[in-house]
């Protein structure tokens, strides 16, 4: 695989954007800006899914995160007072634990990368995963099929909805 193929260039651009926006999301002083940078990170993740041909997950990523979670964040930020600058002083103990967490996290990711290799090399590029296969895998009962988690998540979602309605009800 050549280094400067079209796919590789796009991948590196997207990866760089994700990295820069992730850092900006935690270093910026304004809450809404942080949410916006997080949105760009999620866009980048969706772009990676699209590049891998997993368009279903890419679209779901856009819909759930960009259209759902971030909108929720922005709503709650817009409806509360949050125009203060949030520059906090980090104590030395906190800084040390932060660094330790970062190193452990990076080690974990590198371990996964070196044992499994880049996903780009194992997944055929430019081929779309048919949505029929995704659907069958979600409701099938064989090996590598996920009907039990699917149902459990549905029940969880139902419980969340009932809880939400209960909290939002005016009369007790």
């Amino acid at each position, binding site marked *: 695989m050549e280094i400067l*193929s*079209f796919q590789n260039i796009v991948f590196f651009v997207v990866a760089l954007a994700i990295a820069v926006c992730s850092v900006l999301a935690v270093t910026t002083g*304004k809450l*809404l*800006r942080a949410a*916006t940078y997080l*949105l760009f990170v999620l866009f980048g993740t969706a772009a990676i899914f699209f590049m891998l041909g997993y*368009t*279903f997950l*890419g*679209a*779901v990523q*856009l*819909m759930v995160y*960009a*259209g*759902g979670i*971030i*909108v929720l964040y*922005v*709503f709650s*930020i*817009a*409806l509360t007072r949050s125009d203060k600058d949030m520059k906090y002083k980090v104590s030395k103990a906190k800084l040390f634990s932060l660094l330790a967490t970062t190193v452990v996290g990076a080690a974990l990711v590198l371990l996964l990368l070196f044992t499994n290799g880049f996903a780009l090399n194992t997944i055929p590029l430019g081929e*779309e995963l*048919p*949505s029929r296969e995704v659907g069958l895998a979600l409701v099938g009962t064989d090996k590598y099929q996920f009907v039990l988690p699917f149902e459990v998540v549905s029940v969880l979602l139902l419980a969340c909805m009932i809880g939400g309605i209960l909290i939002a009800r005016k009369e007790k």
Partner: protein
Amino acid sequence: MNQAFLDYYNLQPLLAAIHSWLCGIMPEGLAIFLECVVVGVIILVLYAVLAIILIYMERKVCAAFQCRIGPNRVGGKGGLLQVPADVIKILIKEVFKLKNADQFLYGLAPFLVILASILTFSCLPWHNGGEILSMNIGILFVLAASSIGILGILLAGWSSNSKYTLIGAVRSGAMLISYEISIGITVLTMVMLSGTMDIHEIVMSQANGWNIFKGHIVAIVAFIIYLIAGNAEANRGPFDLAEAEQELTAGYHTEYSGMHFGFFYLAEYLNLFITSGIATTLFLGGWMPLHIAGLDGFNAVMDYIPGIVWFLGKTFFVVFLLMWLRWTYPRLRIDQVLTLEWKYIMPLSLLVMLVMAVCKVYGLVF
């Protein structure tokens, strides 16, 4: 049934020929890059031209419903040059900056709105073999991309640093995320009927009859629900409460000027077109010609009309329906808007989906 008409104006061989010719004189990567640039330019030009046509149409339709003449001075009879003149005017206006506002988010918001609009715009099935963004989850991508626009509206309202825009944005956002649910459910209903999410396949499955005829009563109810929810999604009357001048000035885009305002304005009109285009795709057969069983001569004549004419014709028909709606009904209040969605339209669309599932399982659709 004779399906030869599908090949009359198929663009696929022509596009393949252009691609192989380009690959012959330059490396494939460069050829694909060039094609992407050309297609991108075509999308933007189409976007701008359609916006001009739609704004002119809106003025004329509005005038007709209010017993006026509409624009008739600029550009000879009918005022054809009125909108191009307005375009030039808005292009040379100053884009100003706000004091004490978040400049980055203030500048970003219109681009998020226009990005969502252009992404969904390029998913429309223009012609046989002429779809631009084609993937096997096409319609899901349309729903996903259109949800980015809400974020643009919310950011615009917040970053303008004004109470009017903030309230306008929160109202618009609440309305859009509510009506998105109905749109999703009706789209799912039609996906159930077609058996696929690929936009091209949805159109192809209607070669032997449009979905609105195949799904009879259920599909007609779903069509009406889609039109109501789509009208709200495009932020247009009777759901244009964000622009209720007497309480909110112009809603979330009050503080924008020049082309930044122009982006919101463009996106509103193109969202109208996209809503109609998706309605055409899901219910009225996309670029498929009209066939009436038994009238073979009539069907043969219909087959010779190119797909793009059918698509644009049907889409502009739906656009006209939506404009008719806009200029007929008075504006709703925010509580009425949300009551209508959560208490009537959403339960109804869930019921429609259930009935469609039953019909599909027992073979009650054509």
